[in-house]
């Protein structure tokens, strides 16, 4: 299988973690002509990463890809076997997608000196997202139950991204005051199945942020001239 995208994207990273949790390898590549090219848009008209290609199946949308990987790759099941447990795992991912990712992206795009009211609203929305996650996440260092699930894989990059962009806007560490989330975070980054993959993701995020900072500095220098 081929997973197109960069690990600097939390949506690509969650698929990468799902594959790692399965103990499997998917090939990770950047799409050669870019995600706005006609050939990419023909497979994924949303023009976003990731895209999974598995033979005839071309799948966009990370949440959909994660369930597909769990169902088709060998390795441990990343969904509980009972419908109630499955629902709880999907709920956590859904909360990240609907309540945390939106404000995080907004904060990622915004410069610290942008409209203060809009930034404050996005920070408050991300805060609410953390509160919802704290409500539903498991209390024993796993997102749900006693073993790894897709929720661990989807939440780690999303929470990481949210914490990073909130810090950029001067907000304190958002995991403080959320004891279950804090315990989960520790359990997640120390998990032997995920550890290496998380390290790779962290490196990609660092490199991306460095590149962005250099580009911004260059632009500022050009404008100053």
């Amino acid at each position: 299988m081929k997973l197109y995208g960069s690990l600097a994207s939390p949506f690509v990273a969650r698929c990468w973690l799902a594959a790692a949790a399965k103990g499997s390898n998917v090939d990770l590549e950047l799409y050669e002509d870019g995600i706005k090219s006609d050939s990419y848009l023909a497979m994924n008209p949303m023009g976003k990463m990731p895209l999974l290609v598995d033979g005839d199946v071309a799948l966009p949308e990370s949440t959909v890809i994660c369930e597909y990987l769990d169902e088709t790759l060998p390795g441990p099941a990343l969904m509980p076997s009972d419908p109630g447990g499955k629902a709880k795992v999907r709920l956590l991912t859904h909360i990240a997608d609907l309540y945390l990712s939106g404000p995080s992206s907004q904060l990622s795009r915004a410069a610290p000196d942008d409209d203060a009211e809009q930034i404050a609203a996005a920070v408050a929305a991300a805060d609410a997202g953390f509160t919802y996650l704290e409500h539903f996440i498991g209390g024993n260092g796993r997102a749900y139950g006693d073993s790894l699930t897709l929720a661990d894989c989807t939440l780690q990059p999303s929470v990481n991204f949210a914490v990073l962009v909130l810090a950029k806007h001067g907000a304190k560490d958002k995991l403080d005051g959320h004891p279950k989330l804090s315990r989960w975070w520790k359990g997640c980054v120390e998990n032997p199945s995920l550890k290496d993959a998380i390290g790779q993701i962290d490196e990609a995020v660092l490199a991306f942020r460095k590149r962005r900072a250099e580009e911004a500095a260059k632009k500022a220098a050009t404008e100053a001239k």
Partner: protein
Amino acid sequence: MVPMKLFGSLYSPFVGRCWLAATAKGGGVDLEMFPGGIKSDAYRALNPMGRMPLLVDGEVVLPESAVICEYLDAVLPGPPLMPSDAGSRARVRLLCRIADLYLFPASIALLVAPKAAPAEVIAAPLRETQDALNHLEHFLGEGPFAFGENITLADCTLYGGLALALMVLGRHGVTGRLDGRPKLGRWWGSIREDATLGPAIAQIREAAISYEKQRNL
């Protein structure tokens, strides 16, 4: 078996979607308004997001319509609303996802925009609603259903999404809303006539119409 309780009102497309899923399974869900309302402490203790719907099935308490729908499909008797192979399941989930991530947010932004909102305020959600319809057109099956030969959760999800999108686009003066989207057009024509979903869709439409009247939308 004690029937499950679905808290919410059918004018919400998110409640409507669960209602359609329950209908397609052959029933087994009681629809009720939450006593005290969705902003009450008792509701928020169960669903801190403070939105409808909420499903209560014994010890299982579930917010979020997409999650509820897959749960209903798994636990209710009746025909499966998800295909049996992984690739097809992914396609059904993808259609639901496109509705949740692109169509609903853009349509709701248009819905809550004041009628007299300046063009530049509505330009982005207007474009995003049209884009989302194009994405759906791209991934929709050839009919009569959203994917494959049977009702799936995608049909249950898309009905409310499309109804809302068409309504808000119409409000903003867009005509020929399904032009150039033959698959969506065909699906929209047939889904409301479907023997199983049709009556529940009529019920949902009635609830939406009386809500709009009441709110003067």
